[in-house]
């Protein structure tokens, strides 16, 4: 790789020399460079040295357009990517449906248990009501000894049986 070239031009005039070589220098800047070139041998030499290479660079043609097929290919790739990201992840699909089935079974089981619990509670309440109806008056004379549930009734019945014996 070659980097031995050392420009003999004044660094502050190199941008103007580049504009001059590209044909983009005009007006006051062009006059300023022309004036400088009259007196600066370094800038003059550098400018003369690089000028011929512009002829070679002018021969080279720009990269040819890749053609209409290029845009079609890119759009096809974009659609492909979109389809891939938009679609469900098929690898997880069986696990997801299995999880849904488990969830549905669990919900059904919860409903059955709840219904069973409610009906057994209702039956117990009915038993209490029947027992209370048959209860002797002396067992529930005041609010402190009022019977609230089936266990208390059974306990009182056991106590009264013991008393009889």
């Amino acid at each position: 790789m070659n980097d031995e070239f050392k420009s003999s031009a004044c660094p502050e005039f190199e941008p103007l020399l580049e504009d001059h070589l590209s044909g983009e220098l005009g007006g006051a800047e062009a006059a300023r460079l022309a004036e400088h070139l009259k007196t600066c041998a370094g800038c003059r030499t550098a400018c003369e040295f690089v000028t011929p290479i512009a002829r070679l660079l002018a021969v080279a043609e720009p990269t040819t357009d890749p053609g209409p097929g290029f845009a079609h290919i890119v759009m096809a790739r974009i659609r492909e990517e979109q389809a891939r990201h938009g679609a469900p992840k098929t690898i997880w699909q069986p696990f997801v449906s299995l999880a849904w089935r488990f969830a549905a079974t669990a919900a059904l089981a919860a409903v059955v248990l709840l219904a069973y619990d409610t009906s057994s509670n209702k039956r117990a309440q009915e038993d209490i009501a029947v027992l209370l109806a048959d209860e002797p008056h002396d067992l529930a004379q005041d609010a402190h000894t009022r019977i609230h549930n089936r266990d208390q009734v059974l306990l009182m019945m056991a106590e009264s049986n013991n008393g009889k014996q």
Partner: protein
Amino acid sequence: MPNVAKGVAASAQAIPLPLAHTGKGEEERELVRLAQNGTEAAFEELIRRHQRRVYALVRSILRRREDVEDVAQQVFLKVFVSIKRFDLRAAFSTWLYKITVNECWDYLRKKKVRPLVYEADLSEEQVSRLDGIITADRPPEGPAERAEVKELLDWMLAKLPEQDARLLVLKEMEGFSVHELAEILDLNVNTVKVRLFRARGRLMDVYRRRKSSAMASGPSPAPEKGKAENL
């Protein structure tokens, strides 16, 4: 309706694209806005407008023809994904070319590829052909001779530091302006000008030294077309 709008509307297959009847810059902004709202035809039109320069930019950095198309496609995929984040304050082209440059660096980093290395020297005949163009200002005749001169120029450019070669190719062959290069490569405008001027000098230096060595050693084999070195 302007030609571009007609073309876009045609490719959109009856999807109405309300392009503004104003300047080219505003028209492009309109295309970007439509692409941001998901109009595929507008994005396809943006690709068509910029594909040649993106291609040239990728080629100037990678210098390997076989990778250019793939990387150029990848650039537009990235642009499609992130176009909603583009705020329209800067020129779309500058934003696009910056993405292109970054994509090329990423690619080179991932692949660990060095640019082309030309192994053989120029033959005496080839030097005299270049001499005819450079000193006698005799342009090549016919496509075959032009292609050969282009290959010789590629050989000479490969002898330059990468950045010098890139700047010369983009400015002189691909028609990028100094201001565009400064924005794309994150450099000061004057820095680009100075580097371009010095790159011309180095290229001339390569030519002069090859010429003197070819004249001294006589005929030598033609330059072997580049081989990329994998690290």
